[in-house]
């Protein structure tokens, strides 16, 4: 009886859980119609501590939680910095060696250091967090946790009390100091040590202090407040100052990244308690911010939840945008308080097929487009413009596209004797060989076949939308293209063959030895699905009678080859950190050589004139003079062809009809606060699209019955009809068989 009761209870619960909710809904019925954004993530984020998080899958969380001083304007293009926590955009103040203030127009060579004084808005408060909780005496409640208290704590929400406090300038300085913390491994420590005054020495000081402190008393917490840093100091409770060596205008862009978001010392102290660290309760797991959202559930195996921060200081939707934004509806919410969405649920979805199907069922609000679902989702118009297919249109799904601020290229290792050359004559010969290959490898075709048209063949390293990029004829790479009928046209293959002959390889054979030219393409190990693209690449080289040998290896060995300069031709890419040409052109600077300097110049390209122009350009303000220098640099690069410029990928995103205010912004990551959801429409559509289909179940049961009934009949007949055939051919009824064992 009790089992029956339990079964009935289970049935009742199941029915209740399904009531009012489509049967295939992965979400609880209680969430139906709520102002929740549903998203998915494939890889769990490694770091949520802003001092370490750098990957896009991490920043999609940290950017909603933390507030650095600056942000990008959501609607304006080209990208424009505006204040976030800062009261206004900081002004760069230049000083010479004697500490004398220099004008803004001063020559970069004269500038000894730059000071950015940043004032933050008053009244900004942190999200509720146990690190701030205090008792009646004003003492911090959870900063000296004993074994007894820790015994019942498994996650942050197990702490019964929370607190908050106002954001201060000290928190920003504290975070800059954390960049040098020996245990935190900030990826930008090396770079920032070159710019923030004293950071390099500070890193060594903290290293020594940590070891000393640990040896002395076993204490793991290193109180950074006891160690001042010359390059970052508090002016008053709402103002701090950063001192930069020389002139580095790109520093403003770094101020829009989570690396420079505030961290309260209380959080650092709280999380450093040994018992908490052992239970995975740390800043990498539970962020503490002032932004519009806070992470309330972090179960990266299944789901992560952002909820509206009750202490958020408030911000308004932008009232200005680009021409056409008003017509597109992007200004409909102008001036309204942000954020619009109450909660964001990110579900772990490792595989693309379930993710895509759940998007089509309305259980995810947006989706990117995998190559296997591209034809189902997108079609090209007669003008070559991408649009959604009719099936998508019927569901009200729309497509948003944007050229990413990134570049995918094929690099030549300039240290290689064949493609890089040795000696003056050898280098010239190799240059012509590289130019010939640049013409032969048809990236228009590559983008069309392998990226479903989602890319723009590149004319140089700088992608569209970044200062320095030139459109149209002005931006044409004359080494590879001709301008024909108002558009770039790849030079004929004969031009490439002529260059190849000049390089000393007429018809693809070495003029000196008569041996065929064999080149090596180093790639990471790929599956069968990439075989076609590698075959295609071989064919491109075959146009010049060059034999391309693909050297496939695992990712670790591939990286090792690149680091040691053992690769010959390789594929690589770069995503912009910030919208400045310096962030792309530095990839070919001599100081960034991969071999020897462990830099980002994977091609190991070195050109003294290019380096000189780069050093001149990097600190300049955007303007005609800077553009002129960039043009010169790009021309040098096109002439030397250390890369096949490849293509700039285009991002395609699909959005349901209930998802509003989506304007692709590749550099700003704190966009969730601008998004708006029509939850009622979503609910209606979900029900419409997901009505359970019962006939297959009924049919299945009928089929089962049709199989079972004859089987039972045969069984019964067999059981009853067992007998021994007599000689006369009659069957003796054996029904009198005994039935006992």
């Amino acid at each position, binding site marked *: 009886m009790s089992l029956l009761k339990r079964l009935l209870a289970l049935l009742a619960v199941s029915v209740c859980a399904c009531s009012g909710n489509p049967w*295939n809904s992965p979400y609880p019925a209680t969430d139906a119609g709520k102002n929740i954004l549903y998203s998915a993530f494939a890889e769990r984020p490694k770091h949520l501590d802003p001092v370490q998080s*750098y990957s896009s899958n991490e920043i999609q969380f940290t950017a909603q939680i933390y507030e650095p001083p600056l942000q990008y304007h959501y609607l304006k293009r080209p990208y424009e910095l505006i204040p976030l926590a800062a009261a206004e955009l900081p002004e760069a103040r230049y000083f010479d060696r004697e500490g004398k203030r220099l004008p803004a127009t001063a020559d970069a060579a004269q500038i000894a250091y730059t000071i950015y004084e940043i004032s933050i808005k008053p009244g900004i408060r942190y999200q509720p967090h146990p690190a701030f909780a205090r008792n009646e005496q004003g003492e911090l409640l959870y900063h000296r946790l004993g074994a007894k208290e820790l015994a019942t704590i498994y996650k942050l929400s197990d702490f019964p009390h929370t607190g908050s406090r106002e954001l201060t300038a000290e928190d920003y300085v504290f975070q800059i100091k954390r960049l040098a913390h020996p245990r935190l491994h900030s990826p930008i420590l090396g*770079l920032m040590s070159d710019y923030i005054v004293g950071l390099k020495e500070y890193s060594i000081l903290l290293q020594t202090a940590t070891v000393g402190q640990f040896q002395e008393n076993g204490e793991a917490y290193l109180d950074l407040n006891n160690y001042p840093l010359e390059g970052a100091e508090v002016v008053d409770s709402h103002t701090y100052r950063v001192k930069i060596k020389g002139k580095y205008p790109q520093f403003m862009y770094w101020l829009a990244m989570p690396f420079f978001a505030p961290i309260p010392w209380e959080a650092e102290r709280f999380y450093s308690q040994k018992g908490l660290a052992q239970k995975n309760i740390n800043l990498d797991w539970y962020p503490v911010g002032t932004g519009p959202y806070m992470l309330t559930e972090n179960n990266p195996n299944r789901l992560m939840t952002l909820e509206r921060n009750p202490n958020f200081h408030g911000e308004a939707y932008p009232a200005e945008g680009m021409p056409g934004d008003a017509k597109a509806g992007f200004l409909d919410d102008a001036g309204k308080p942000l954020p619009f969405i109450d909660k964001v649920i990110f579900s*772990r979805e490792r595989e693309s097929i*379930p993710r895509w199907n*759940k998007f089509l069922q309305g259980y995810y609000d947006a989706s990117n487009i995998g190559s296997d679902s591209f034809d189902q989702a997108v079609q090209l118009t007669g003008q070559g413009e991408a649009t959604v297919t009719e099936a998508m249109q019927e569901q009200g799904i729309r497509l948003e596209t944007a050229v990413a601020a990134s570049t995918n290229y094929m690099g030549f290792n300039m240290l290689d004797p064949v493609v890089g050359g040795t000696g003056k004559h050898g280098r010239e010969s190799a240059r012509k060989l590289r130019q010939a290959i640049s013409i032969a490898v048809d990236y228009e075709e590559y983008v069309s076949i392998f990226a479903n048209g989602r890319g723009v063949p590149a004319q140089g390293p700088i992608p569209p939308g970044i200062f320095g990029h030139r459109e149209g004829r002005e931006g044409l790479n004359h080494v590879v293209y001709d301008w024909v009928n108002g558009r770039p046209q790849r030079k004929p293959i004969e031009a490439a063959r002529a260059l190849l002959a000049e390089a000393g390889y007429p018809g693809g054979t070495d003029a000196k030895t008569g041996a065929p030219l064999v080149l090596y393409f180093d790639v990471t190990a790929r599956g069968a699905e990439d075989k076609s693209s590698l075959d295609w690449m071989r064919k491109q080289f075959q146009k010049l009678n060059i034999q391309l040998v693909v050297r496939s290896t695992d990712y670790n060995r591939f990286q090792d080859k690149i680091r040691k300069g053992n690769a010959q031709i390789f594929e690589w890419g770069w995503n912009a950190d910030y919208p400045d040409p310096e962030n792309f052109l530095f990839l070919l600077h001599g100081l960034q050589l991969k071999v020897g300097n*462990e830099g*980002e110049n994977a091609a190991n390209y070195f050109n003294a004139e290019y380096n000189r122009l780069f050093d001149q350009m990097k600190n300049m303000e955007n303007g005609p003079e800077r553009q002129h220098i960039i043009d010169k640099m790009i021309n040098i690069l096109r002439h030397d062809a250390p890369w096949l410029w490849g293509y700039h990928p285009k991002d395609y995103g699909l959005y349901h009809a209930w998802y509003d205010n989506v304007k692709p912004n590749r550099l700003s990551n704190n966009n969730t606060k601008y998004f708006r959801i029509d939850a009622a429409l979503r609910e209606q559509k979900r029900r419409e699209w997901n009505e359970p289909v019962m006939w297959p179940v009924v049919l299945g049961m009928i089929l089962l019955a049709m199989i079972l009934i004859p089987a039972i009949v045969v069984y019964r007949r067999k059981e009853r009809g067992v007998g021994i055939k007599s000689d006369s051919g009659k069957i003796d009824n054996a029904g009198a068989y005994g039935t006992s*064992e």
Partner: protein
Amino acid sequence: MLNYIIRRILYAIPILIGVNLITFTLFFVVNTPDDMARMQLGIKRVTPDAIAKWKQERGYDKPLMFNGSEKGIAKFTRTIFFEKSAAMFAFHFGQADDGRDIGREIKTRMMPSLAIALPVFVLGLGVYIVAALIMVFFRATYVDFVGVVLCVALMSISSLFYIIGGQFLISKLWHLVPISGYGEGLNATKFLVLPVIVGVISAAGSNTRWYRTIFLEEMGKDYVRTARAKGLPESIVLFRHVLNNAMIPILTGAVVVIPLLFLGSLLAESFFGIPGLGSYTIDAINSQDFAVVRAMVFLGSLLYIFGLILTDISYTLVDPRIRLQ
């Protein structure tokens, strides 16, 4: 029997050391500690200094298996192999490369894995045995023939097809259960229906055929003829006599996998979004997290050995003639 079990447990120790050694060697043939550091620290702007610090903090700055700079036994103990392996035998799995406690992760993820694997195992065993007995009952008839053809067809299809096909039909077209996901407590039920159905069907072909072969072999034995001669109905002969006598081969295949149910399924958990140990292992392999890979392989070996001991013990329960000595 106690002596036997103690002896088997002692045998397990060298096996576990061997497995650990092989895992360690294979892992570090493919990955170096530098690779692991780069994987954790990211691709952009990683300095050699940061890599060195990462390795030092996690004890990967030592030689792999032999430390020539030390003296005596320390030549072997002050190595990555010894330091990372010794604690594991005390079930201290340590921390993953991202700093999270492996033991706690295993505890948390064990239940979701079990929530799929156990129903698949129990239901599957029942369905396969009954189906095999039915085929045997109708042997040499069209039912048997169709059954064998169906089994071969089911065996020939990739398990990935069952998963994608199941998701397409049951979830996408018929909207009966969610495509993927997981819930806590009773909420998990609706997420488990599809993986369990797919799990049972995908293994039906091979298992049913296997059991059918076992039963057919038994059918030719004297005791079956005797039972029939006594006049027992065929159903009694099959379900009571044949099934009982076929228990040894059934247990050989079934009991050994019981402990392994905790480890989950790599493919199904990934596609159905189940946060179990199978997906944990896949994640660890992808992120080159040696600590987790080593812990999971160790746990797998241990549970397999435990399963073998259980199998031996189960023989004594179903066949009184067997004695463990």
